[in-house]
């Protein structure tokens, strides 16, 4: 049995869904706080409530570390709730802590469903939170002491008067090198068996800690009951030459320390690194009521409603064969009407507002700007647009990659920008636009842009150019960044140099019937757009026949259909036997799909000319059928990538009569048409 018992394991997905929702609210609130460098009382209350919910659920699940950490978080926001002035102007000091908390919660939430889950301990984070709570708690006492009762001794906090504690001062041998390191080791050893309440100096990595230990000794505060056993244990330590025990001085020692800590924070207010605009306004609560639904339930519902549609067409066919019956006809019509309503609602269930993805993107921008020391203003326009959940799941990584690219390669350093006469703060905008059947995701930056000449030079070096560099159009040169293995980055950074590249972005877009457009002006900036179908399962397509198979291509990737008679005069054969078709000013490589599918050729043939990424392709098929909305269905795993490369098929399609057709990829056809024969085969 794993970490959770059977009952708890059954609740895991609800717990995860709930936590993710809460953390998305939390992240939005923190980002808003970062932007304003303060929190409103409503925001503090909302964060407090969020933490409270997480704590409750985590405690029920037996996630003690998460619950404890969240409890501390609640305490901290409790301090702010009592006096909102305290956080004002101090947000940047604690932001990293807030985000570290968010990362921990999200990380644990994701991990709980792993079979060998075990809680990750975060003592340093809990300690840091505790310190922060005390710091902000004490802040008031300082202000109170200085403003109201000047020179009056501030009341000692309760912890100092606790007579159950003892101060032990460990004196190290004079020739002992790196006493602070020894202190760390001692602390570690003692912590195994006893509870060490505090050490002075507390930060043993601080540059002056070794000197303090050398001159004043290493002080630890322990429970009175433990003194004897600890002293005994330390007697064996070769570096510790003397141990002082002092009950009385605890108060003074610690008080000194507290005074140090409560000194007004001299930190200058650092300018925000990333300025993110977010629409999150927690106070605007909608009165609508919501429930959570499991995604797989929605998928099943989609499947069932699809089956109903198939049943209906069977009913319709049967009715057509029967003598006319008024009652049956009206029944069939009513059935159809209800069915339309059902399928419409079910597809609406699968729609999600893009805004729920926003915190993740804002957060990425913030972290990278900080890491790369870049000053960025980032905004998302149109985040309330609803998108298909299937698309939602697949678009976030490509979008994040494009945004990372802009941050990493697009936006210049502040110095470079001021030299170019640009505002120091770079700007990146993610725009969502609904264009009817398509949604456009566009990432625009005002960075250095891309120079086609540089791209071509890099392409030449990598040996990925298909023709002499001089023959490349600007668009073709820009599209080079989507070629596998292309990267003009002079250094591989931790950000853009990992995982998905622009070629993967392009592949993902095409796999879902979308495409990528790159626009760039050197010195001015770059815009990368992903045009994606609103519903990635239903695509307006042309159906045609290859051998015994019915196949589909999206209408927007098709340019022209030619009969064999019309095509004859345009065809030419190269020396290597490859046929090409003259289309406009271009020679387009012809792919005979009958050969690809290893099926016999018929007398009839049609030539389809289409495009992808500004390149043309031409395929020969047996017959053209009709224009339909093809519902894409994933193909089983036994049809692997290699098969897909060979056949250019990316999805299955279930026809209205229940038979199975095949959805082709314009991108893959284009690759073959342009001589990029798959290397793996």
């Amino acid at each position, binding site marked *: 049995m794993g970490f959770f018992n059977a009952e708890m394991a059954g609740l895991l997905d609800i717990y995860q869904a709930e936590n993710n929702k809460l953390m998305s609210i939390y992240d939005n609130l923190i980002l808003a706080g970062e932007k304003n460098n303060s929190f409103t009382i409503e925001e503090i209350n909302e964060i407090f409530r969020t933490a409270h919910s997480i704590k409750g659920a985590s405690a029920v699940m037996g996630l003690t570390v998460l619950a404890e950490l969240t409890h501390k978080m609640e305490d901290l926001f409790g301090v702010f709730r009592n006096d909102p002035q305290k956080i004002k102007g101090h947000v940047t000091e604690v932001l990293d802590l807030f985000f570290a908390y968010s990362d921990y919660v999200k990380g644990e939430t994701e991990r709980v469903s792993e079979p060998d889950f075990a809680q990750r301990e975060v003592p340093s984070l809990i300690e840091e939170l505790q310190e922060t709570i005390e710091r902000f708690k004490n802040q008031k006492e300082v202000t109170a002491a200085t403003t109201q009762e000047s020179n009056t001794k501030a009341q000692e906090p309760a912890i100092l008067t606790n007579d159950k504690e003892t101060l032990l001062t460990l004196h190290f041998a004079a020739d002992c090198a790196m006493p602070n390191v020894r202190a760390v080791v001692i602390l570690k050893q003692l912590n195994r068996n006893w509870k060490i309440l505090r050490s002075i100096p507390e930060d043993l990595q601080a540059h002056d800690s070794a000197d303090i230990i050398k001159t004043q000794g290493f002080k630890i505060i322990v429970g009175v009951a433990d003194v004897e056993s600890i002293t005994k244990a330390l007697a064996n330590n070769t570096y510790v030459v003397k141990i002082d025990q002092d009950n009385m001085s605890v108060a003074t020692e610690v008080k000194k320390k507290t005074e140090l800590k409560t000194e007004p924070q001299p930190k200058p207010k650092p300018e925000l690194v990333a300025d993110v605009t977010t629409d999150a306004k927690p106070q605007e609560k909608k009165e609508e009521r919501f429930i959570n639904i499991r995604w797989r339930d929605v998928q099943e519902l989609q499947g069932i409603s699809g089956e109903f549609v198939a049943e209906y067409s069977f009913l319709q066919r049967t009715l057509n064969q029967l003598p006319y019956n008024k009652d049956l006809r009206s029944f069939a019509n009513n059935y159809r009407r209800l069915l339309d309503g059902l399928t419409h609602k079910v597809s609406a269930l699968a729609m999600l507002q893009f805004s729920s993805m926003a915190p993740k993107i804002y957060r990425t921008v913030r972290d990278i700007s900080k890491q790369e020391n870049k000053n960025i203003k980032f905004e998302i326009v149109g985040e309330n647009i609803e998108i298909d959940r299937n698309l939602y799941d697949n678009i976030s990584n490509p979008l994040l990659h494009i945004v990372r690219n802009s941050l990493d390669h697009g936006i210049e350093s502040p110095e470079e920008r001021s030299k170019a006469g640009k505002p120091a703060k770079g700007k990146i905008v993610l725009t969502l636009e609904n264009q009817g059947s398509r949604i456009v995701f566009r990432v625009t930056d005002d960075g250095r842009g891309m120079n086609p000449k540089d791209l071509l030079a890099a392409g030449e070096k990598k040996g990925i150019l298909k023709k002499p560099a001089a023959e490349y159009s600007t668009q073709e040169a820009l599209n080079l960044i989507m070629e596998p293995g292309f990267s003009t980055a002079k250094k591989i950074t931790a950000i853009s140099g990992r995982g998905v590249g622009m070629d993967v972005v392009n592949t993902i877009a095409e796999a879902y019937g979308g495409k990528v457009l790159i626009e760039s002006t050197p010195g001015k900036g770059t815009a990368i757009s992903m045009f994606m179908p609103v519903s990635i399962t239903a695509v307006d397509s042309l159906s045609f026949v290859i051998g*015994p198979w019915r196949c589909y291509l999206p209408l927007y990737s098709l340019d022209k259909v030619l009969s064999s008679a019309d095509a004859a005069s345009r065809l030419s054969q190269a020396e290597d036997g490859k046929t090409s078709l003259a289309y406009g000013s271009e020679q387009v490589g012809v792919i005979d799909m009958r050969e690809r599918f290893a099926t016999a050729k018929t007398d009839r043939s049609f030539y389809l000319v289409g495009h992808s990424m500004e390149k043309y392709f031409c395929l020969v098929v047996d017959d053209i059928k009709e224009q339909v909305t093809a519902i894409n269905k994933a193909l*089983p795993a*036994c049809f692997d990538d290699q098969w897909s490369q*060979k056949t250019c098929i990316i999805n299955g399609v279930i026809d209205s009569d229940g038979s*199975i057709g*095949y959805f082709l990829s314009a991108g893959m056809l284009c690759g073959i048409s342009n001589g990029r024969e798959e290397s793996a085969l």
Partner: protein
Amino acid sequence: MNADKEVLVFELDDKLYAFPISQMKEVIALPPCNIAPMMPPYLLGVINYKNSVLPVYSLEKIFGIEQSKKNSLCLIVNSRLGLLGYAIDAVLGIRSLEKATQIEERVSVLPGELRIVSTVQLAMQEKPVHILNN
């Protein structure tokens, strides 16, 4: 009765085979199979199963024997590759493994990630049964 201890036994080319009941989803009448372009050699084709595309494996092709013309049923099996179907002629019945004697433990891996995990005898005088797993 433990579901892991029960198997669905069927005959193929005069030999007996079985899938654990725990892996079975259902048995349906074999619908018309659609051949896919350049499909893997062990496939009989694909079918429309509850509005999704399901591959139907041919055990004859997997074992390299002559394709039966009497395939009339389709076993829907939960596998590591997701749901998939096996075309068979007839089901002999559901049998318990509790009193079975193991004849051979050797695991053989067949095309399409199908495995024979063991060969058992369910009762005296009966033909050995090859237990399949996918």
